[in-house]
């Protein structure tokens, strides 16, 4: 009986494992190649390095040293943090404040305002690039960190406000009533009650915004393009592809450098990560 079941399931196992191998192979090729010297890379496929033990001693970290110091990926790594971390904090703080007001404060036009904010989710970035770029040029914000922080914050807000408002709105009313009876101000209730209770949704939202900004190319390309000293990893990597398109020993190492942080986030915070991605899927 058991054997029959195994046999019946065999095709399922085969299909699933084959797909996983197909999915993994491209990334594996990148990883292996990033540790191979230039000549090796150009004379044989990466798979030969994996299956030939005599070649294992030839693996080297020289490509990484090269891209981090000579090709500007080290600076870009720092820039990516300098862009992503403040952006995430700014977006989340501003969104949380607005979501709190939209969830728990009574004022005329609240519902209309909420619908308008949610409606803004549908606007694709492309609709805003030209006027914002002109604005940035006029105020000398092109090629600056504050410029891109604010732009990313603006683009991320509708979705963040929507997510947080849904969560805040679902908190029990009694919570606030008892807090106010005890003399708490609305701001105190926000800091002491709402934020601590919302850690899961704040984490998902933060991870989503962090990865969105970390992986963004378009916004960086438009508002930071041409300013090499502030270029994040994605922009630097795309420039490398343009200038050294056949130097695979550099491109593979550089690509892997740009992937490290998202991979760590993904592997360590998978639950929040998946939630964040699912929630963010509707971003315009």
């Amino acid at each position, binding site marked *: 009986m058991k054997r029959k079941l195994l046999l019946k399931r065999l095709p399922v196992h085969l299909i699933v494992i084959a797909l996983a191998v197909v999915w993994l192979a491209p990334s594996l090729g990148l990883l292996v190649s990033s540790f191979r010297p230039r000549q090796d890379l150009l004379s044989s496929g990466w798979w030969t390095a994996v299956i030939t033990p005599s070649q294992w001693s030839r693996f080297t970290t020289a490509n990484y040293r090269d891209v981090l110091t000579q090709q500007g990926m080290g600076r870009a790594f720092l820039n990516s943090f300098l862009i992503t971390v403040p952006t995430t904090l700014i977006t989340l703080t*501003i969104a949380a404040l607005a979501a709190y007001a939209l969830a728990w404060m009574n004022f005329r036009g609240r519902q209309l305002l909420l619908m308008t904010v949610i409606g803004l989710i549908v606007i694709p970035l492309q609709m805003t690039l030209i006027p914002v770029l002109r604005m940035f040029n006029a105020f000398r914000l092109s090629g600056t960190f504050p410029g891109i922080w604010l732009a990313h914050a603006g683009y991320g807000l509708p979705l963040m406000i929507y997510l947080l408002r849904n969560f805040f709105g679902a908190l029990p009313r009694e919570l606030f009533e008892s807090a106010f009876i005890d003399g708490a101000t609305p701001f105190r209730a926000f800091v002491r009650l709402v934020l601590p209770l919302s850690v899961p949704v704040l984490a998902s939202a933060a991870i989503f915004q962090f990865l969105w900004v970390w992986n963004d190319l378009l916004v960086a390309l438009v508002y930071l393009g041409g300013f090499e000293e502030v270029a994040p990893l994605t922009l630097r990597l795309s420039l490398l592809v343009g200038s050294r398109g056949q130097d695979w020993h550099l491109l593979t190492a550089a690509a892997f450098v740009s992937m490290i942080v998202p991979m760590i986030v993904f592997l360590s915070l998978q639950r929040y990560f*998946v939630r964040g991605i699912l929630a963010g899927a509707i971003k315009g």
Partner: protein
Amino acid sequence: MNMGRAHWLYLAPALLLLGVFLVYPSAETIRLSFFGPRSETFVGVQNYVRAFTSRPMLIAFRNNLLWLGVFTLFTVGMGLVLAVLLDRVRYEAVIKSVIFLPMAISYVAAGVIWRFVYAFRPAVAPQIGLLNAIVVGLGGQPVGWLIERPWVNNIALIVVGVWVWTGFCMVIISAAYKGIPREMQEAARIDGANEWQVFRHVTIPFLKSTLAVVTTTMIVFVLKVFDIVYMMTNGAYDTDVIANRMYNEMFQFSNYGMASAIAVILFLAIIPFLVINVRRFRVQEAVR
């Protein structure tokens, strides 16, 4: 609940940023789309006429349509197949992580990964690209995957998109699949239904609204697809798409009128799908 009149203090920063970065620029882009390259002369609907008649734009429209069909079919289809099959194996979580992993990295990195897979060298040299090594190993001639138009190179780009997004579809569909009451499927089996019939008449109807959400999400992605094409070919050899045209009109040709018109077209194309999606958002909320 009465919290005084301080609400505007809480809302002000958000409203300011939304106004500056979304509301005003969108209105301005619509206005600019009726003006010439440098936004000085009013040209009426000329940009739109050109957008729907010029050859590069028609190719971009065709390619977006190709993406729409092939990309959507494969991401949603494979996501569904994986969700159903993985439910039957014990190492489900590992495989799911593997398939979902590409979602975590940038399209720029994905572009490098796949440019390497597609690497093409003349038949005399050893092939360092995985795909051409397989083709040559099977006795074929190396293929210029990103060069051969119109089908090979466009499909090659779509494959990159499928590689990235299948995991997303799989995770959402899988969550909904696990919500189907097991008794329903068991009851069907006891009544003599085979696996295909169970899938067709029990599973699919149950997943209908989830599949709709996933499909519209994929369509929205397809309409905006930019990074993959920009990184892999920058639209060369007839692989251009709408969003990349917009970028090139803006930066390569400095034609702000045309670029704005393309942005507006993109926007109008996306609206219906995003409206459906935002409405159905509750389905996603339910699976979390």
